């Protein structure tokens, strides 16, 4: 797998309502999706991808692009749900880069759990359609009392039965007014490409850099994973050497120059 530096062409929300079909670029309206699984499933189905062999790198790129555009307008909780999925995608992508035996059992494929969830989610979408049809059919039957009672003059009718307890009972169930929204923009999702170029820029200034420095100020899982992925990628291309004195000790990265002329062997501690 190579690091593709071309920015993914994913536009969101600014385009007409037509769902996406065909190849990239993709036009995705994030609002239309119930959540990250819905979006992911849509990306896979719209491109006719074999769900048992998901090209994680491509899908991850498209997923990140889609949420990058749409995230700003989203409530924090909802944004978090999409970000969590983004982090798992990046994690799976990283796991796929690790060396592994030629022949894997399905359970050992890093994508297995994701595929299981997607298929399960898709099955429930079928149920949703069944329910929707049933609901529409039922909605065409009316019982007694469907037609709103005809207004009568106030004088002519009996006193209304309404106790204070009933009113208060109803009042106590009114939800609290929503607190004023304080928007904290969610941390931006970062791409592996950005981390690679960050590492390259740092090596222009120093021969040795701390792994932690690659995501220090942000500290999120997405940043850490992107940084790890970038380092693994560069190590694979022999552009960087990784050193760690002991487990949990600081990890240091050494530049190996453009052709990897640094002398030492590929020691991935």
């Amino acid at each position, binding site marked *: 797998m190579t690091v593709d530096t071309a920015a993914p062409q994913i536009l969101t929300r600014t385009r007409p309502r037509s769902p996406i079909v065909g190849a990239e670029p993709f036009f995705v309206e994030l609002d239309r999706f119930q959540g990250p699984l819905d979006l992911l499933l849509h990306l896979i189905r719209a491109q006719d991808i074999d769900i048992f062999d998901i090209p994680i790198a491509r899908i991850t790129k498209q997923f990140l692009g889609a949420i990058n555009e749409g995230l700003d307008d989203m409530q924090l909780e909802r944004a978090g749900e999409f970000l969590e999925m983004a982090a798992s995608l990046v994690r799976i992508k990283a796991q796929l880069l690790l060396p592994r035996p030629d022949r894997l059992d399905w359970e050992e494929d890093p994508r297995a759990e994701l595929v299981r969830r997607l298929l399960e989610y898709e099955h429930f979408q079928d149920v949703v359609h069944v329910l929707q049809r049933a609901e529409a059919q039922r909605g065409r039957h009316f019982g007694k009392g469907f037609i*709103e009672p005809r207004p009568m003059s106030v004088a002519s009718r009996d006193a209304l039965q309404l106790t204070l*307890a009933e*009113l*208060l009972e109803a*009042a106590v169930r*009114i939800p609290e007014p929503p607190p004023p929204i304080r928007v904290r923009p969610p941390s931006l999702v970062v791409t592996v490409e950005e981390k690679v170029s960050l590492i390259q820029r740092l090596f222009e200034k120093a021969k040795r850099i701390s792994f932690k420095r690659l995501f220090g100020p942000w500290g999120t899982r997405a940043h850490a994973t992107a940084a790890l992925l970038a380092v693994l990628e560069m190590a694979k291309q022999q552009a960087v050497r990784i050193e760690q004195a002991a487990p949990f000790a600081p990890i240091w990265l050494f530049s190996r120059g453009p052709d990897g002329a640094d002398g030492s062997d590929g020691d991935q501690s």
Partner: protein
Amino acid sequence: MTPEQIVEATLFASQTPLTAAEIARADGELSTGAVRQAIATLREAYENEGRAFQIYELGDGFQVLTRPEFAPYLERFDSVPRAPYLSAAALETLAIVVYRQPIGRIEIEEVRGVSASSVLRTLVDWELIEVVGRGEGLGRPLLYGTTTRFLDHFGMKELAELPPPEELPVVLAELQEAFDLGAAGETSTADDAVGVE
């Protein structure tokens, strides 16, 4: 669809008497004369088939009711409607107006999550709420507030007599207790079903 069927469906779906003109609204081609004709046909059919219900003329309206001879059977059920009461939807909307007034339809719908226009009409019709002004913004929406009749109904002089929202659970518990003491053992199941989580 014959006029008889359309009239039958309409009468069936209503719980209160409808005038011939009101029934005619079901279909643009239905005249009040045709409605009256259909009602006569239906009455005869119900009679011949020995149906347990019949169309009765009440005031200026028509209503399908069970025949009086079945009353003894129906009285075995405890669900006999009493004096008019508000539907759950109307009650909920009233509670929102009471505590958030002045408030517009849109805000009420935001709280309840469903359309409120017909419920608001019912409450205005009962003179429990009224239009008290117009809000800012698009279309200058109508704002609703409670009426003096609302206060009368609960024997209050002013809204300030209502418990503040944060005390509602306490007041409710007290009311429930007083009710239990007063009606020891009677009808308690119905209220239990409504209130307690």
